[in-house]
């Protein structure tokens, strides 16, 4: 009993990222638009969090703020107790597949952040991550010669290669077809379980969030607030036709105010 609950308790203790009272107001042509409204969130170490909300609600802004690309109008973000003041190689942001550098090969992209390592170590890591994301045989290919799913895996590999402890993913599978998207979710979970990263994943896809996350943070339309945080207490691999899955999913559908019918 105590053994079974120990990992959960241990995980609950350490906070990786804390967002405290984040508000964001954009000024344009003299008009002020409030995008984020007093958002506070604690993310535990090793946790997989999905930020879920309608398009344009500000969840990407929230992610960019947590990653240090934007400074909030008010509030603070701390990671491991340190205030976030800018982007940092210890936490890598994964854009949609358009983030890979088109002028570099697969190897060049994966090795991009490894400039401080020796040549041997760099090559060893490139080899390892090429294999991890299943791009063997494409080492010398340019992104233009790859499919959308392969480019996405390449970007994830480039991020993982610098051994960050956090990943920020901004609708990473949004541009992929639905079959590739399902495969990519499985791949991401496999990598997450193997590499023990803390992941914050932005999506507008309810199913995707329930399949992936430990907790789903449901956000409201602009200005974004946290409506509710849903704990997804189903162990991986998740049976997406189980009663519990459907219950959690439908709960979120209801929260967002969508009927179950198309």
């Amino acid at each position: 009993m105590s053994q079974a609950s120990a990992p959960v308790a241990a995980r609950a203790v350490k906070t990786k990222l804390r967002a405290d009272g984040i508000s964001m107001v954009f000024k344009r042509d003299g008009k002020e638009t409030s995008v984020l409204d007093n958002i506070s969130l604690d993310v535990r170490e090793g946790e997989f969090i999905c930020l879920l909300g309608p398009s344009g609600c500000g969840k990407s802004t929230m992610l960019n703020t947590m990653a240090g690309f934007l400074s909030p109008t008010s509030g603070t973000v701390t990671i491991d107790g340190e205030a976030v003041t800018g982007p940092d190689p210890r936490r890598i942001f994964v854009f949609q597949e358009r983030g890979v550098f088109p002028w570099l090969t697969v190897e060049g992209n994966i090795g991009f952040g490894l400039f401080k390592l020796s040549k041997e170590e760099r090559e060893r890591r490139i080899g390892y991550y090429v294999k991890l994301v299943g791009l063997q045989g494409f080492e010398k290919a340019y992104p233009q010669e790859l499919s959308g799913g392969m480019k996405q895996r390449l970007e994830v590999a480039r991020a993982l290669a610098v051994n960050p402890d956090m990943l920020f993913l901004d609708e990473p599978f949004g541009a992929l077809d639905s079959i590739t998207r399902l495969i990519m979710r499985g791949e991401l979970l496999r990598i997450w379980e193997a590499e023990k990263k803390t992941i914050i994943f932005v999506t507008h896809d309810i199913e995707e969030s329930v399949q992936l996350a430990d907790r789903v943070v449901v956000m409201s339309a602009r200005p974004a607030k946290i409506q509710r945080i849903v704990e997804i207490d189903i162990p991986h691999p998740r049976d997406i036709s189980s009663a519990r899955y459907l219950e959690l999913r439908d709960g979120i559908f209801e929260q967002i105010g969508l009927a179950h019918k198309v």
Partner: protein
Amino acid sequence: MNLPVRLRPYGFIAVLLVAWYIAIHRQAAHLLPDPIAVVGAFIELAQRGLLFKYIVASLFRVTWGFFLAAFTAIPLGLAIGWYRRSEMALNPLIQIFRPISPLAWIPIAILWFGVGDTAAIFLIFLASFLPLTLTAMNAVESIPAVYINAGRNFGLSTASLVYRILYPAVVPQLIIGLRITLGIAWLVVVAAEMIAVNSGLGFLIVDARNAGNRYDLVVAGMVMIGLIGLMLDTGMRSLENIRSLRWGYSED
């Protein structure tokens, strides 16, 4: 006609040459020399050692003017594009200078440098400088923010950001700009040589007219200018086939 596709342009040129020949000989006025006279003019120029000498003279001026402009305008344009907010001040100035034809500078070029290579090189430099500055500015401004953000995320210093992101991201557009500008430079060298020097293909054309209305030499000079322009363009265009640059030219 069932010519292979590759040969069709040559076939068409041959037809035009024949039409040219026939047209000239069907009327009395001397509007143009016929193609055979032009070939004769080429042979004459080659025999007198002028053809090669004039080609080299023109290419020499274009090379100097164009490369001087490239080595100054591209870094300047990249810097303006990079610090676009603080350097907006330069833009009105550029926009005022831009509509001034490089040829309008000919009197000033002669005043400053006298008649000779330097004046011609200066004119080529002027003709190339602004287009290249603008190309570099626009190229920097159109770099997608994701590339810059990704570079910053991996902890690059500003110097390595320039070298590893900015530079490779602008190269495809720069090559297009260089190609177009080289075309302009080649147009301008001919005009500059008509006034500012006494050698080169542009000089050949005015000189042939002034020294006895040798229109066969004029047309030979024109054909030579066209062929070399085509060669320069083809050379620049071949850069676009480099594998690591091809992304910059795809439809995607």
